[in-house]
């Protein structure tokens, strides 16, 4: 059995004494897709930020590639890709300039070859010369996704990557995610969309800062006695 990419035990975060999330425990193996599901404000983004080392947990601990989650060493941030919910590319620059910056940040020597590879793989050749601020929401999200994976990370932390997207872009992103998982990339994806949740191997269910799981979608449905995932989530929400 391969070593886990990420393990976490009892992560918790408070803001101003108010618990935002508590009891996050997980173990993520290469090639697994873990979905963080639940209502907005449930602590999904906070969990992703703790896994990315951008927030220090108030309680609990964990490791990413054998290094503490809260490490601020630049080298510890090289092996994963983190995609925020907000568009984080430089809007006044072209997609190509943004991707070149990511290559430089990750120390990719032959950026031209790498960019040619990812451009072909993700089909964004027509977007390269366009300024990010001129792209549609779906195009910008595609570009942001490519920027997140351009260095070939073994772990992806994605915050609502499909929120507000058209169905074609959404399906494309999921196709890309499954292909990456097939190559052994571990993926953590937050979503409040149950269509996305159903595509995950396992789920952490967030409700008012408390966390349940990880469970497979089928196990979550069975544990709720519901007919499908939507009914299961609704059942849990009404029970809390």
């Amino acid at each position: 059995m391969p070593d886990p990419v990420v393990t976490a035990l009892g992560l918790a975060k408070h803001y101003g004494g108010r618990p935002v999330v508590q009891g996050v425990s997980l173990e993520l193996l290469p090639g697994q897709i873990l979905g963080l599901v639940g209502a907005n404000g449930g602590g999904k983004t906070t969990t992703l930020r703790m896994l990315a080392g951008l927030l220090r947990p108030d309680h609990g601990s964990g490791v990413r590639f054998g290094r503490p989650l809260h490490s601020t060493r630049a080298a510890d941030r090289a092996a994963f890709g983190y995609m925020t919910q907000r568009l984080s590319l430089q809007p006044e620059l072209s997609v190509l300039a943004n991707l070149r910056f990511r290559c430089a940040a990750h120390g990719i020597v032959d950026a031209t070859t790498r960019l040619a590879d990812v451009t072909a793989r993700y089909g964004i050749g027509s977007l390269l010369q366009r300024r990010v601020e001129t792209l549609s929401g779906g195009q910008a999200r595609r570009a942001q996704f490519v920027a997140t994976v351009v260095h070939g990370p073994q772990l992806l932390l994605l915050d609502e990557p499909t929120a507000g997207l058209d169905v074609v872009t959404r399906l494309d992103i999921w196709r890309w995610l499954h292909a990456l998982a097939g190559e052994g990339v571990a993926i953590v994806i937050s979503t409040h969309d149950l269509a996305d949740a159903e595509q995950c191997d396992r789920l952490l269910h967030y409700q008012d800062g408390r966390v349940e799981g990880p469970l497979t979608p089928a196990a979550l449905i069975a544990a709720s006695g519901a007919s499908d995932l939507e009914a299961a989530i609704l059942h849990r929400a009404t029970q809390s």
Partner: protein
Amino acid sequence: MSSAGRIGGVARLELQRLLRARVTFTLLLLVPALQVVLFGYAIRPDAASITVAIAAPDVVFAQQLAAVAQAAGSTVVAAGLAPGGAEAKVRERSALVGLEAAVGAGDGAPAAPPSLRIVVDGTNAALTEPALARIEAAFWRTQVERTRSVSARPRLEIQRLHNPDGLASWTFLPALAGVTVMIAMIMLGSLSLARERESGSWETLLSLPIRASEVLLGKLLPAAMLGVLQGVLVLAAGFLLFGLPLHPSVLALLLLLPLFAATHFVLGYAIAARAATQLAGLQGAIAFYLPAMLLSGFLYPFESLPGWARGLGNVFPLTHFIRAAHSAVLCDATPGVVLAEGVPMLAFAGAAVAVAMLAHARRID
């Protein structure tokens, strides 16, 4: 709902937003408080800040001239110097005005009236021109009281060093290069970070394997280049449009420009590292450059400030840049004199880098 109701609704919303923003209180309190302190206590141009050196052939004449200088409200820093000594003091910038007196020929020849040469440091015309007028008036008043004979009155000659025509533009333009670079760099520094934070790209930047020092240097290099270009353009305008003398020592000043620009960019960056918004970053920038402009000798003569304000003024890199610029452009000082002003700039830059690195969190909490 009526128009008044809608206006009231917008006003209520805006008031709530203003009251909840900490930056508003900074805007309302800090900047005016700073101005009250600086204009009330520091900016008090007075004649006592004019330093005078006196060279006279005899003690009596020297005492007479000292009395003239004091009557004009100036401070005598050296008296009884040998001929040429007062001018030397002005040239070495330890006095702003030198009074060089000479008596007429004696030993049987018809007595010529004594002569007085006033040597003025013209690098700060705004300070020395009014002082010159006061000293001149006091001198003539004294002479009129001493002698009724017009023919016996001394000849008076005025020599302005470094700025022969006493042009205010010659004083301001070299300093303006520093002021424009300072404002642009500190603004760029503070906005570069705050903009990233507001747009959301800061969080992504933190997740990348880039050290804080690498982020700072990466942002600094192009900004400092722009700052140098800006300073060069202002100086070039001074040389081409206002006839500023183009001495070789200007090259030494150009060597200081990158350090000066970088120092202010880093300072802006340090401010922004703790500012939540672009507005807060700008507010912090203003809170720095306003006193810098007031206490550096740009708007008001440095020598006219009280001791505590001069001490504070010496902290600002702008003060040293202005000195270096006047030394290089107007005085044709040696490169060593010009570059020596870079030492306090370097110390300030080191402190700014330390603050920026400490303030640059690697996390968002």
